[in-house]
């Protein structure tokens, strides 16, 4: 799965693994309006012992950016406009 999805990019070194992004995604994108990590379109895989969190997006992510809204660590960014600068600052948008 890609590290970035359309207009959202991840800065993994800022992530603390709180999963608020995934909880929000599942709540706002599922018809049942429920919290479910396995139904989230953003996945945070914690490597607890490496102090590292791997973030990926599923193919059906609609880049609604609810995950960005609920990330308090600045680990997710929404790019309104694709620019060379944003590419060089982090992973950069893919499309």
């Amino acid at each position, binding site marked *: 799965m890609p590290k970035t999805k359309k207009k959202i990019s991840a800065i993994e070194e800022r992530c603390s693994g709180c999963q608020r992004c995934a*909880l929000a995604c599942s709540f706002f994108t599922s018809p049942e309006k429920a919290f479910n990590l396995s139904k989230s379109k953003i996945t945070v895989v914690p490597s*607890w*012992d490496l102090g590292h969190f791997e973030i990926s997006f599923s193919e059906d992510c609609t880049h609604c950016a609810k995950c960005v809204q609920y990330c308090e660590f600045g680990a997710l960014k929404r790019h309104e406009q694709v620019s060379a600068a944003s590419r060089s600052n982090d992973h950069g948008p893919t499309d």
Partner: protein
Amino acid sequence: MNAACGYAGTILSVDLSSHTVEKIPLDTDLARDYIGGHGINAKLLYDLVKPGIDPLSPENVLIFGTGPLVGTMAPVAARATAMAKSPLSGLIGISNAGHFGAMLKFAGYDHLVIKGRAERPVYLNIDDEDVQIVDAAHLWGKDVAETTDALWQEIGDEYWVTCIGQAGENLVRFAAILCNKHSAFGRTGLGAVMGSKNLKAIAIRGRKSVTVADGRKFMKLVDQNLQAMLSQHTAEIKMFQEQGTYAHVLQSGHMNFIPRPSRDTEAFDYQKCMDAFQRTNVSCIACPVGCKQWLKHENGMEFGASCTAGTVGMPYGVELLLPTWTDIGKAADLGQRYGVDSIDMAGMISWALELYENGVITKEDTDGLELLRGDAGTTLELMRRIAYREGFGDTLAEGIVRACQRVGRGSEAYAQHIKGLGKPPRLGLDLRAVLKHTYQFGGVVNPRGWHPDCYRVVGIPFSGEKEGTIEAIKDLAPMFGIPPQAMAAVLAGKPYNIPLFTKFAEEYYVVVHSLGLCDRPFALMSIEILADFYLAATGLAITAADLLLAGERVWNIQKAFNIREGASRQDDRVPERVTREAVEVRAGKFPPVLVADVNVLIEGYYEARSWEKETGKPTAAKLKALGLEAIARDLALPS
């Protein structure tokens, strides 16, 4: 049920003796009367554990609970509570951790009840509905990090792994249970209970949903309260992110109220810790702060610090006076690997050091080991001997009460414990300096022993700090739901009515812990907001007063558990030592605690709780008012 949203609706009960798994619907009345997590655990424990059993026998029951807000986006809703009869105190054992509850909930369970004892080492694999008791011969003997890695390798790293290390296997009475190498169910020896059941680990993978009754209202509450928390506590949160829970002890003036150290240690300077270790913040689920840390040292050492104060700096630095953060880190790493309550581990070693320094014990008692305070070699070797119960380590592994009995020779005079739980260095506060404060006094009457469960009250100035007490109490009153008509009584006394305020604080904290919320000072929400969250999540109409009544019910059932085990007025007391010796702390010299002063506080507390003044037993009338008539009958209370 599943009558209410918020809850998963099922209690998972596993009997390791009969190898059976039962799924019991969560009763709506149980949910309403005991809220969840901590509260329902207490009720289940009271009902399932027969009085007088050996805590390390198959008859003990180990219970994990989540809470109706766990698994949602309610800020800091990550807390799980574990309970069993404690092998340390012989009374109610309670402990909490962050990296457990949500995954249990996503697997479809609010509580996990473990009974019996497996014939051979096993682990529990909970994969949604599929619950397997699996052979764990290959894991037995491994430390916490090795066990966790082995299970991630074996069954997948999407599992949350909770396990014991060698200390739990060897029934060290202050063994802990660790989750994902980070969070610890630390206090009261529940790791030994897990070990006694031959249960090495619990691995959970859940893919189910946690629903809420009114999603729109719920998310509005999430948004409002998250922003309030982040904007009102910006500086405090930043400190917790940088220093973990060490921020708490540095910020609150704790360091001014600990006995003067007899030698230099870097433990008083957290900047040196930040220089020595590379740190990564780790959050519990749904927490926007992340006060847990993964600490990495340039020498290759790395470990999870669930509580930089309680797991790392205070026990091994402030208590044992290891000189550098590197040495402190070595001890903390080892403690996490063996799986111990670092507070009692350091406390036991500190006690042994003092016995040695004063000639009560010699090398003949310690199998030839010279005991030197502030020496990393002594500390690490004693930790190893305790975890494996080797020689003198076997005595220390018994916990303070039994170790005093075994050593004899007046060793009790050097001990500091309440109900068998050692002095929590995380407090950093000496009882002589700050007895007259809910934070410390709460530890004297706490059914689980010496631990500060009323965390937020550190905002109230300590003894010797005269300014701001009344303001702090007034500030906290609405949060705790203290009725306005009770405020005159709460504010009466010097410096305030500590017993009565303690009662209100305890009930509020039971609510917080039962909903499944963290109790870091910056994270607390008012009881009215908690009631709003509960209603939006569950759809069960409940008021703030109802929640606090449930808190009182739970506190009484915990007390009843202890009374049924034979606890009496004598168990609510300060260590004899602090009534005999004065102490010097940075804030000044403090005389011994006067027993008469303590008695006044305790009797005031019993009165505030409507418990019998002479015995500390809840009265039949109080239990009846709480709907606990059956317990009054159990305890044969006069009506």
